[in-house]
């Protein structure tokens, strides 16, 4: 593949390099989507800034790790970890967060922040501080040559699988009756209740589904990277950044915002390796300056 000298010293640009970064950006961005969609929708509809969302991703990853270690079956890990974390999300909503509905947003913020610390320490207590990662089955190991780019099979699977989930979610929000209820709830909860809909039941289901999605992302990230008891902070940063970029409560915003973050991370690391994370902040600041409410605000 021919190479072109880019404007920055020491940076070479090739077709394969650009394609590789697009693929990295898509994969990272798609995993971020699963995390950010749940965070954004809960914030948009329920009005809860769930600071424990990153902790749910982390718990999903660790639970997936344990299931994989115990059974050696990745599919079981991918299925059971989200179920477990979805149940945890539902329990947390019913027992704790529900008590604070209608009260100051700061109260839920403090509650979920406290929960995030509980989750981090629970991970330290149960799994310890040692690094670990979800070992993949042999058929997911290796890579595929895509126009000169060696891309891991597992990452392609992750990309494909998350695309499917996103498509299902899109159809759900855009076409289904309950998707309409959620979207309507973001504007006016009282009116939705006036139609006889049990809005608190919807909130619980929302927490269950969003926690499950967070755990799916956790299992994928845990298999691509390494697990540590502080990884939840990274995911919270991602979720908050995506809400700022995409706009509060917006499915489309969460999707586009996540992909923008993924691309910023991938290309940022290529152009300025030491400032890879910084490039994501640059994107965020640029969006705030141009569109203070985000790219696709729902409310």
């Amino acid at each position, binding site marked *: 593949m021919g*190479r072109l000298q880019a404007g920055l010293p020491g940076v*070479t640009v*090739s077709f*394969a*390099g650009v394609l*590789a*970064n697009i693929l*990295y950006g898509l*994969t*990272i961005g798609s995993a971020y989507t699963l995390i950010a969609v749940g965070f954004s929708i809960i914030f948009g509809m329920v009005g809860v800034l769930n600071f424990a969302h990153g902790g749910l991703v982390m718990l999903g990853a660790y639970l997936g790790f344990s299931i994989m270690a115990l059974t050696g079956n990745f599919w079981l890990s991918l299925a059971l970890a989200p179920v477990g974390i979805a149940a945890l999300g539902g329990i947390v909503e019913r027992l704790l967060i529900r008590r604070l509905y209608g009260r100051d947003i700061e109260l839920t913020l403090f509650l979920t922040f406290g929960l995030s610390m509980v989750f*981090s320490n629970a991970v*330290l207590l149960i799994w*310890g*501080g*040692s*690094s*670990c*990662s979800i*070992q993949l089955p042999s058929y997911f*190991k290796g*890579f595929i040559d895509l126009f000169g780019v*060696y*891309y*891991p099979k*597992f*990452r392609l699977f992750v990309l494909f699988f998350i695309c499917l989930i996103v498509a299902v979610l899109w159809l759900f929000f855009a076409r289904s009756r309950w998707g309409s209820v959620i979207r309507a709830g973001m504007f006016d909860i009282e009116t939705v209740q006036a139609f006889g809909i049990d809005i608190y039941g919807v909130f619980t289901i929302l927490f269950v589904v969003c926690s499950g999605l967070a755990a799916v992302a956790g299992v994928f*990230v845990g298999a*691509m*990277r*390494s*697990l*540590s*008891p*502080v*990884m939840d902070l*990274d995911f919270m940063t991602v979720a908050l950044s995506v809400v700022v970029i995409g706009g509060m409560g917006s499915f489309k915003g969460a999707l586009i915002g996540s992909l923008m973050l993924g691309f910023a*991370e*991938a*290309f*940022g*690391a*290529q152009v300025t*390796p*030491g400032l*890879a*994370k910084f490039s994501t902040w640059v994107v965020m600041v640029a969006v705030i300056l141009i569109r203070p409410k985000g790219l696709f605000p729902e409310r």
Partner: protein
Amino acid sequence: MENDAFRKKDNRLTRRDFIRAVGVGALATGVSGPFFTAKADQPEIRLGHVTNLSGVFAEGGALLDKGLRLAFSMSHYRDSVKFFVEDSQTKADVAVQKALKLYEKDNVHLLVGPIGGHESAALSAVLAPKKKLLVEIFGANSYLVGKDCSPYTFMLGHTTYNLSVPMAPWFLKTLGNKVFLVGADYTTGRDAARFFKEAFEKIGGKVVGEFYSPLGTSEYAPYLSQIRNAKEKPNGVFGFYGGSDCVAFVRQFEEFGLKKEGFVYIDTMIALNMTLLPAMGDAVVGFYDCATTVPYIDNPADKVFMAAWQKAYPNNIIDEFGMLGYDAGLCLIKALDAVRGDASNTNGLASALHTIEYESPRGKVKMGVNNGTVVPVYARKVVKRDGKFRHDATFLGYHGTPCGAPYEWGACKLGCPA
């Protein structure tokens, strides 16, 4: 805080075990001079340990502490030592806060420091002017045995220098003359690459590219393509990633096909340690690192350590961190013997540590005049035998950390090794 659970575990040792362990330990450590025996009224030893219980080095911090406690549990100080442990969170500012808390509120007599080079530098800068003892097991920072050295700061483990520079001739001889440098973008990562580069270029080696990613990076995919796109194919990729960074880097190195294309990764600073290897899986087999110790090495002190470790911590594998914690314990016990167990004698302890020599599981260890140890250094290749990870080690000689004008970390006011 005191760990009562540990004491309970100690109590399961029989008297016979204890006497045997102390006897063998004393022989192995080469205790010289009058053997100091604990008395019932022996003064209390308040030992502070700021270690990494969270953050990227979390896996090592807890093990260092276990090793340290193990050595004391086998010594005549087992009933008089009190441990005070704090988590540095792998952050320099937190490490300083915790160290000051230990010294000022818990009144510890001496402090063992955390793993990160940035943490040890910050701690020494605060503690040395106060004439407070700091013993670093890891905390690799060459400046602390150069212009920032202090009569109260001791680098027991290694420095970025003595686990990087000896690798240059080894690399040239074993792998070739072209290297790609990588590393975590902080003091230790940058220093390891720079010291290696200077030594490598001096003997005719060539650096074909380099990158440094932020500490705590979990996604290396965008960086790895730079290795493949280097103008010349390197014979190896050298640099320092530790803890969870190392796990992610090694796994993705293989995942993105670099290993299959013949690229080899060489880490340093004992990064490919027994604790981390299972998390990296088969991806790490065939890669190298540089270390002062090799688990399962055949020496008497190591045999004593392994037997004691397996008995005390049957659920923990034998690993380098536990061993280095134990090594530090042996060193401190010998220094305490020199002041007849009086840990409040700070200057006496500092004098003893300044000239200390002892036998540990890693071999013969000697303190250099600049308060940095001279230690055996090995290039280790990760292999798998009978389904278990092991290291095939090549001995690279005994290495300390020099100082003085030729080195950017400058001269140590205590003196520089010849």
